[in-house]
């Protein structure tokens, strides 16, 4: 694996963290965690002029951020149960539409009263929206069905709210690009192995990356490790109870709706159907798990998701399902209730000096994707406090790279883009219309040897065939474009197949099973990948 640092090399004139060559970096702010919150914090801190380093144990946005349904809440979901969270959502929804339009598709959202819902909830919902400042409009059932013909025709009410969908990977990488433009150093694949303490003060962290260990000293350390924040806090000698709440999601092969569809009811399992990029995602569940890194997905849970989908869109069960995955929410509560839905979705900044007597160490936890920017703002405000300075936050005003022109993402844009290069360029991932140039550019930009990292940047292998036709092509191109040995390229291929299999095997049936078997025919029958030459240690890893 080549070093995957995204540094300030391209950002001339900005204050960069010092050091590096001798395995040491000194900076003002060290951010631990490369999810949306960490990326947001890094951007915010860098924009306020702090020299900033972000470390992430894997690739960016691979924890909870990259594993959700893609809904940019209007806040409607929380209006009755958690008005504070609802208010935060709508506030951030409006800001993100302004600063991150390139990452957002303006799908709009519908809350519909299905036959199994409390008919009275809709009125409380409308009141809640009014109280929290969420624009809401009731439309007739016929109009709702005209807009979304597949909706359950037995719905009794339909309410329109400004929900949208968001590409979390794009959002995080946009924050990373912006942060590095402001001088930050972002280090994916750098795992914290210890927290440096100077007496009562946290003074940085030791991280292990592809190039060995790095000792990063910082004036303040911000723990933005999400569901893993408890583990990081423990390294600093603090106790933070983050309860990992598992939610699973199932993607269909194509969009069944083009608007976010929510059940108009108190939040429950499987009550949202989100059109995100080329698929619809039904979600989600909410169960406490002990370890954020180890939890299975059962057929029973998948079956419940399909039943929930059927309630929103009749015929859902017969639709092809591509994949199942889960994410773990960082639910923060010191004295937690048993039901995770009862834990607040609001976030908290913990200053461990007051709480645990540990200085220069902050934990930002709780919250959800759509409030990541606000969370970052609160965390960096607190960091300013630690550093004894006051610098205003500007992230609500300055658009992210490629955004700021109110040009929301449109699903047809890739098709239009492909149309322009039909004869000039190869199409590598046919399902998701990934062109060769885009692939080569991503490989060069990331210097990455992992096809899975490329996948998140481009959606490579995320369509119906789940990599069946593009994995060999992409491996060949990766092998050529980098200086990988064939053995390393082989490993990249087999790891990608394993990663794809992870989301497939719990739900394989019907059309997707036929696809998986054709894919196996390609890999095992035609290419014989099970006998690929690997270096010994690589064979052990795969």
């Amino acid at each position, binding site marked *: 694996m080549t070093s995957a640092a995204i540094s300030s090399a391209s950002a001339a004139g900005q204050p960069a963290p010092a050091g590096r060559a001798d395995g040491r970096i000194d900076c003002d702010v060290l951010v631990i965690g490369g999810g949306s919150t960490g990326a947001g914090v890094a951007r915010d801190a860098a924009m306020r002029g702090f020299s900033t380093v972000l470390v992430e144990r894997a690739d960016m946005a691979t924890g909870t951020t990259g594993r959700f349904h893609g809904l940019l809440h209007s806040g409607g979901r929380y209006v009755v149960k958690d008005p504070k969270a609802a208010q935060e959502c709508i506030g951030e929804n409006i800001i993100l539409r302004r600063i991150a339009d390139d990452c957002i598709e303006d799908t709009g959202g519908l809350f519909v009263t299905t036959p199994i819902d409390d008919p009275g909830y809709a009125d409380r919902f409308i009141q809640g929206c009014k109280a929290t400042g969420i624009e809401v409009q009731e439309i007739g059932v016929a109009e709702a069905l005209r807009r979304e013909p597949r909706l359950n025709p037995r719905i009794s009410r339909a309410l329109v709210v400004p929900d949208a969908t968001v590409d979390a990977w794009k959002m995080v990488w946009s924050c990373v690009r912006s942060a590095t433009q402001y001088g930050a150093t972002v280090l994916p694949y750098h795992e914290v192995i210890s927290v440096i303490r100077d007496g009562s003060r946290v003074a940085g962290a030791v991280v292990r990356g592809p190039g060995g260990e790095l000792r990063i000293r910082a004036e303040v350390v911000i723990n933005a490790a999400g569901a893993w924040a408890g583990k990081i806090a423990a390294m600093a000698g603090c106790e933070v109870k983050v309860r990992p709440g598992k939610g699973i999601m199932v993607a269909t092969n194509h969009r069944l709706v083009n608007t976010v569809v929510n059940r108009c009811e108190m939040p429950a399992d499987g009550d949202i159907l989100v059109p995100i990029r080329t698929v619809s995602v039904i979600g989600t569940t909410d169960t406490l798990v002990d370890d954020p890194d180890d939890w299975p997905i059962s057929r029973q849970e998948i079956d419940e998701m399909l039943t929930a989908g059927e309630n929103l869109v009749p015929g859902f069960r017969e639709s092809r399902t591509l994949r199942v995955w889960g994410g773990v929410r960082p639910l923060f509560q010191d004295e937690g209730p048993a039901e995770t839905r009862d834990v607040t979705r609001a976030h908290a900044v913990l200053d461990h000096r007051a709480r645990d007597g540990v200085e220069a160490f902050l934990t930002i936890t709780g919250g959800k994707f759509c409030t990541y920017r606000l969370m970052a703002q609160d965390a960096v405000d607190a960091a300013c406090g630690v550093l004894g300075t006051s610098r205003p936050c500007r992230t609500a005003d300055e658009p992210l790279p490629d955004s700021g022109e109110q040009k929301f993402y449109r699903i047809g844009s890739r098709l239009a883009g492909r149309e322009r290069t039909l004869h000039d360029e190869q199409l590598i991932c046919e399902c998701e219309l990934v062109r060769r140039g885009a692939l080569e550019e991503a490989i060069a930009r990331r210097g990455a040897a992992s096809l899975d990292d490329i996948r998140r940047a481009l959606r490579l292998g995320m369509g119906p065939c789940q990599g069946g036709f593009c994995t060999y092509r992409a491996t060949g191109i990766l092998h050529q474009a980098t200086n990988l040995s064939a053995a390393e390229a082989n490993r990249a291929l087999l790891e990608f197949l394993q990663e794809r299999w992870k989301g497939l095997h719990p739900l394989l049936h019907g059309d997707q099973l036929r696809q998986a078997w054709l894919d196996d025919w390609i890999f095992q029958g*035609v290419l014989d*990948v099970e006998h690929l*030459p690997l270096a010994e240690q690589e064979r052990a890893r795969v």
Partner: protein
Amino acid sequence: MTAQAGTRAADAVVLGAGMAGLTAAVRLAEAGLRVVTVAKGLGSLRLAPATIDILGYGPGRVDSPAEALPAFVAAHPHHPYAAVTPGALADSLRWLAGHVDAYAYVGDASANMLLPTAIGVPRPSAVVPETMAGGDIRSLRCVAIAGLRALKDFHPALAAENLRAAAAAGGLALDARPVLLSPPTDGEADVGTLSFARRFEDPGFRGAVAAELRAALRDEEAVGFPAVLGFDQVRSVWTELQEAIGRPVFEIPTMPPSVPGMRLARALQERLRRAGGRFVLGAQAVGPEIRDGRLAGVRIRAGTRETVRLARWIVLATGGLASGGIEVELGGAARESALGLPVFGPDPGEPAFLPGYLDEHPMGTIGLRVDARLRPVGRDGEPVRQNVLAAGAVIGGARPWREKSGDGISLSTGYLAAGTILEDAG
């Protein structure tokens, strides 16, 4: 009103037009039977490398399928090969070689060749097109793997490097290196395998390739090409290319769609047509037609209308999980999609799939079980119907891709299914 509207009778209806179905249909039609092949679409043979792999791994690498099969079958009593005698296997291989006009199929069940795949793994195959046989790594010393810039489904650098490593691991001194060719493609950057095959039939294009190669080749180097060396005229393309560069040339199968698969499908379809066999494309078998307690034919749907095809025999060659011959629901419930015959899959309570991609998934061997005459059997081991014969991937008990046995099973069972019918017909 016609009393029998929508029914037309045949001696045999063959369901499916892959390797197994076409083999059975051609053999029956050539024997003078009235045969109707009904296919939902063009069969998966068009995706296949079109090498007749009999047994490549079982689980260790097999050098001689003929020698390995008795022990393999003893260890896998429900494997389709349990119904195939060595003599029948040999007959089916000879039969195939006699039915492909475009070029020769070479090899037999006594020894496997080791032919490179498109990623450079030497893969055991028994009977292959003559254009591929030169790729046996044990007979190569020095090879250039030739890629075509506009072909995204073949990566010569990766294939060459892997081939070198694999040969070295097997104690062979093989020097393999990539050569990337850029013959003119009328400005098209993304050219598919079939399109390249057609271009190779143009002498001008071939000349451009040969000229580029001559400049790039070293002495004594054989040349491995993606399998796109012509479609209708493969033999002359291959021969002339070898003459033009003065080196041996061999083909390496590519990702689907596969030109060698299309050549083979076309050859068998042509034979079927010449023998008077009928082909109904775009219609799907949806169930058995039972009359007087006997299977009298099959119900076929095209559009909104269902019709009946009456037949004395039915050959079920609809394929396995990949082709929809076997369908599986979320809970694991499985059905044979055309006639509703009993399916043998993972035991209830057993996980269908394991977490490792390359694990041996219990679902992998799902399919029908058959008796020695290829009649599908029920739980009691007795034939469900006397006049249904199963052939190809619809029969379970095998792991064709892992064993490298796919088209060997399809060819031999297709051939045998026809044999059973011909015996019964007298």
